[in-house]
């Protein structure tokens, strides 16, 4: 089972990779969102503040004004952010719940894909 510490480490690594990726910087210049990630087993919450394609802040707490909310079991979230699982497939089979516009869902899918390509 994934621990809270593992999840925090996974998200920190993912954020570093996103911010270092030049392709993402180029294609997401207009993408500024508040992304909330919620897990169960263990219960954790994280808020990523994205400004023009760069994650400028990450807090391990909920934000009620989020643009995008992802929720799933901790092991599923860990698999997504380590590139082991395809988030859109998990969304389609109901394992991952996503509250976001269609466009934002596809942007998130592309971010994960590009980071782990």
């Amino acid at each position, binding site marked *: 089972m994934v621990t809270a510490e593992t999840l925090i480490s996974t998200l920190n690594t993912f954020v570093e990779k996103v911010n270092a990726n030049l392709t993402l910087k180029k*294609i997401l210049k207009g993408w500024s969102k508040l992304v909330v990630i919620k897990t169960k087993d263990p219960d954790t919450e994280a808020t990523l503040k994205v400004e023009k394609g760069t994650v400028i802040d990450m807090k391990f707490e909920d934000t009620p004004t989020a643009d995008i909310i992802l929720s799933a079991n901790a092991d599923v979230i860990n698999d997504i952010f380590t590139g082991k699982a395809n988030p859109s497939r998990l969304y389609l089979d109901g394992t991952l719940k996503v509250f976001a516009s*269609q*466009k934002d869902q*596809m942007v998130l899918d592309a971010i994960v894909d590009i980071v782990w390509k």
Partner: protein
Amino acid sequence: MKFVVLGGAGDMGGEVVADLAQFSPESQVVMVDLRRDVAEKKAKSIGLPNVMVEQCDVNRRDDVLGVLKDAKIVVNCVGPFYKYEKVILPLAIESGVGYVDICDDHDATERALSYSDMARSNDVTALIGMGWTPGITNVLARLGAEKLDQAESIHIFWVGSIADSEGLAVTKHVFHVIQGLAPSFENYQWIDVDALSGNEDVEFPDPIGVQNTYYVGHPEPVTIPRYIRGVKNVTLKGTLLPKDINKLGKFLVDTDAVSTEKKLHAVSEFLSGDLVVLSNIFGTKDKPLPVSGLRVDVHGIKAGKPKTFSWGAIDSMGRLTGIPASIGAQMMARGKIKQPGVLPAEACIQPEYFIEELKKRDIEIEEM
């Protein structure tokens, strides 16, 4: 000064509102949309004090005339334009309000040009097709022509991603322009070519890379030969990402599934309903990047020798479309576009100024 943005809560209109509010902070920017709740949410997310919201059904003439009252400039982002251009443009001219739109349908553009006398009579400037394609592409065509002694051929290409756009109007526009005949300008004359034909591999800026494009019906071949003198060829080809989605488009056209407005509406509504599913079905081999792009090649003669200028740009479709429309509206408001009539971008936009304005918004025109 009051700017009115019709369809302001949409994907493209929201970008126009945000840019106008940010770069003309002394102005009032009215986001007009049928969906008040969506507009209020979008206005809140823009978070600038000079953005107001008004509700309006553009099918109701008096409502449109009402929102145009006291406006300096209206930016029309209500698509599909083959349906709404003829509704809104005459009302703007009648109201004496400066007009900018992002019309991307070739037939609607031809019709819009026919309102030029009416616009001149009312001393109204109507800048049409001021998005990315047409829009940025037309300005780059003019830039190339100005750098040459004689422009001979202008080839325009675009790539649009289904992961980069949402909304019914975009889907309807795509089906409208990939069926039937598309206008092209070849050997000094306008001809009709089959949409979806003339396949050509074209390199776009990274990370889009090489994509297979084909003829689609678009305004550039309709307007550019009227304003760039002596040009022999003006062609336009486009494509969609992921690559396999083009096969679905061709299949739906070939089977007459989108051949009437009723069928087109039903299919577009169905496909727009779940782009995530669509993206997964057709993007198994190549996931669609959430980005769109353009390329303009201008061939001609400089100092007696053949010379080519090629430029490209990529960004989100919303920014590529909305920001040029906002820049055009602000140029008009500041008196940088004065001549009355219905005008495409290449007729009245000074390229260097426009490209500098794009740069301020982090949209880079790359040499290819």
